[in-house]
C-alpha cells in the first residue's frame, strides 16, 4: 500500500466522529462515557482486588474458582468483555498465561483494556509456541519442572490469572496484598511479588 497520501490517523478518527455527529447519527458527547469506562473504570486494580480477596477469604476463593463471573460481580466488576470470566489458579506445579492470538480479547472489567505489548503481533504469535522463552524474555524464569498452560482467548470466555500469594505476606491486609498484583500478573507474564 502506498502510504504517502494516506491521511494521518488522527485526522481519520476525527473524520469518522465528525461525520457521525454532523449527520445526526451520534450525539456529540456519545463516546465520552465509553471512553471514560475504558480509560478509568476497567483497570487491573479491579482484578488485583479480586486476587487479594481470594488470597484472604477461602470461601470467596472457592466461589471465584467455581464461577468467576458472579464472584467478580460481588465486588462490582462486570460488564462488556466480562460476560463469562474464568479464574485460573497458579500452583507450585502449574503456571498460567493468557493470550488472544487472533485479536486481543481481554476481561476488561477485571484486567482493563489490554496493554500494547499484549496486542502486539510478536506476543500473539510467539507465546503459544514458545511460552517459556517468551516469559524468560519478559523477565519471568520458570522452573522447568513447572508446567505451563497458555490460555488462548478464542471464544467468549475471558480469563484472569490468580497468581500465587508471595511468601512473607502473612497478616497483610487486602489493600496491601492488592498492591502486589499488576496487570501483567493477572495476564501471567509476571508473578505477584512484594516490593523489594
Amino acid at each position, binding site marked *: 500500500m502506498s502510504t504517502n497520501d494516506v491521511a494521518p490517523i488522527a485526522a*481519520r*478518527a476525527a473524520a469518522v466522529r465528525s461525520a457521525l455527529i454532523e449527520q445526526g447519527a451520534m450525539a456529540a458527547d456519545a463516546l465520552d462515557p465509553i471512553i471514560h469506562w*475504558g480509560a478509568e473504570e476497567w483497570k487491573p486494580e479491579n482484578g488485583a482486588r479480586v486476587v487479594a480477596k481470594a488470597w484472604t477469604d477461602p470461601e470467596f476463593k472457592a466461589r471465584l474458582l467455581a464461577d468467576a463471573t458472579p464472584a467478580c460481580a460481588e465486588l462490582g466488576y462486570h460488564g462488556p468483555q466480562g460476560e463469562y470470566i474464568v479464574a485460573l489458579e497458579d500452583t507450585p506445579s502449574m503456571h498460567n498465561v493468557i493470550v488472544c492470538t487472533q485479536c486481543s480479547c481481554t476481561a476488561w472489567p477485571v484486567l482493563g483494556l489490554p496493554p500494547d505489548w499484549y496486542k502486539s503481533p510478536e506476543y500473539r*504469535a510467539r507465546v503459544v509456541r514458545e511460552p517459556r522463552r517468551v516469559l524468560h524474555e519478559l523477565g519471568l524464569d520458570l522452573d522447568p519442572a513447572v508446567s505451563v*498452560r497458555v490460555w488462548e482467548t478464542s*471464544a467468549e470466555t475471558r480469563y484472569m490469572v490468580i497468581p500465587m500469594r508471595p511468601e512473607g505476606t502473612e497478616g497483610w491486609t487486602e489493600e496491601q496484598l492488592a498492591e502486589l498484583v499488576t496487570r501483567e500478573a493477572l495476564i501471567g507474564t509476571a508473578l505477584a511479588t512484594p516490593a523489594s
Partner: protein
Amino acid sequence: MDGVHDLGGMHGFGPINYRPTTEAFHEEWQETAFGLMLGSVILLQNHTPDAYRHSVERMAPSHYFAVHYYERVLTGVTTLLVENGVLDHADLERRAGGRFPLAGPVADKPLADLTPQSEQRFNKGDVVKVKDFHPKGHTRAPRFCRGKQGRVLHVAPPFPFPDTSAHGGAQREEHTYHVEFTARELWGDNGTDNDFVVVDLWDSYLEGATA
C-alpha cells in the same frame, strides 16, 4: 479465513516491546477509535462482535502489520459503517484530507460446511479433534489447532456461533469447550513435555476422537 491475523505459532516475529504501562490510551485518536468500536453497537443494525472482528481481519496484510492496534480498530469499524451505508467513504476522505484505507470485502461463500450443534456433545475429559476446515469467512478456530487432538478441560456456556454471526447468519448458540492440547501435538518435535495450550472452541469445530 486463513488470514495473517491468525498469528498463533507463526515464526519470524521478534522481541516483544514489553513496557507495562497503566494508561489505556496514549493519544486522543485511540480513545476515539475505542469509543467508536463500542459505539458502533448502537450505530449499526445487526451488529455483532464477530462482524467487527472480521472487519479487522479483512484489512490488507501490509496495512494490518504496519499500524497500531487502534488503527486496526478504527479501520475495521469504519469499514462496517461504510459497508452498512451509515458513512460515505468519499466524504470521510474529504474530511480527513487524504486517503482513508478500509478493509477488503467479505469473501463470496464465506461459511464452512459445518453441522450446527445446538446440544452439548462433549464433556470434561473427552478427547476431541478439531476439524481441518478452511472457510473464506470469519472463524475462531485458530489454524494452529486445526486437525489436532486435545482433551476437554471445561464446558463453557453456549455463545453465538461466530462463523455465522459474523456474516449476518443465524445467531445460534453453541457450547464452547476449553480444549487442552499438548505442545508436542501442536508443534511436533519443537514442543516441550509439560507445555500446554488451551483453546476455547465451539462445538461445531470439533469431532469426537480417541486418545
